[in-house]
């Protein structure tokens, strides 16, 4: 079963970081990601650019989509990245969430909906590396 881990945190914490501090933080994320790949859990995952660079498209039935600058919600904490993992159950997904190398932040774990029995095609490539 697939789960999304939405990574939500306050932005700007790393702006004053030295290259060494930045590298140390990235090393922790890199080893977390590599472990998920090795475990056969990792399908996709990426960091996002600051929310100030986001655009939001408003969709309303019968109307043209309206594009505006900025993220969906103007909150202090913003979506900063995500992982899509293959896990055996919610418990395993929560364990992955607890292992996220956040200094300070929140992880929302959500099961992916399986519509394939209703004729929905699922194109995702599956885990990058199969479980051992």
């Amino acid at each position: 079963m697939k789960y999304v881990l939405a990574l939500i945190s306050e932005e700007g914490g790393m702006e004053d970081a030295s290259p060494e501090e930045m590298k140390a933080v990235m090393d922790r994320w890199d080893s977390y990601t590599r472990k998920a790949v090795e475990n056969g859990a990792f399908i996709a995952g990426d960091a996002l650019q600051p929310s100030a660079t986001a655009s939001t498209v408003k969709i309303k039935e019968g109307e043209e989509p309206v594009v505006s600058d900025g993220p969906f919600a103007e909150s202090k904490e913003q979506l900063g990245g995500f992982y899509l993992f293959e896990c055996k159950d919610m418990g395993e997904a929560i364990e992955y969430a607890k292992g996220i190398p956040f200094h300070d932040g929140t992880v929302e774990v959500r099961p992916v909906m399986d519509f394939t029995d209703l004729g929905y095609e699922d194109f995702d490539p599956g885990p990058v590396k199969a479980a051992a």
Partner: protein
Amino acid sequence: MKYLLTFYVESRMADSSPEEMKEGLERWNAFENEAVDAGALIACEPLEDSSTATTIEITDSGERITTDGPFAESKEQLGGFCLLECANLDEALAWASKVPMNDGHIQVSAVRDLSQYGYDSHTAAPVRAAA
């Protein structure tokens, strides 16, 4: 360049009749097939209702606080996402305007390249290469 489209929606398709559901899924299949054929689609997933979410807060002292429910108790909740390979933001916005949602918001965020810090993205390439 990769872009993440996150969908924020109020009502869920799960509340629909089987006919509405089928029609909705056909529109999604058509959207995704178009994105696959264009060499843009990396992953696209609908999410279970936000009531099924678990939220884990990680504090600076290293604590992990687990609560039931989504991060934000807002009316519109994350309902799915699409990760797309696009030439630029305009192309990503063009895909966003084609997403077969009836009502809601789509946030379009550019993926950050962290390779200069030694972080490699392991995310797979698009399902099909661009023609």
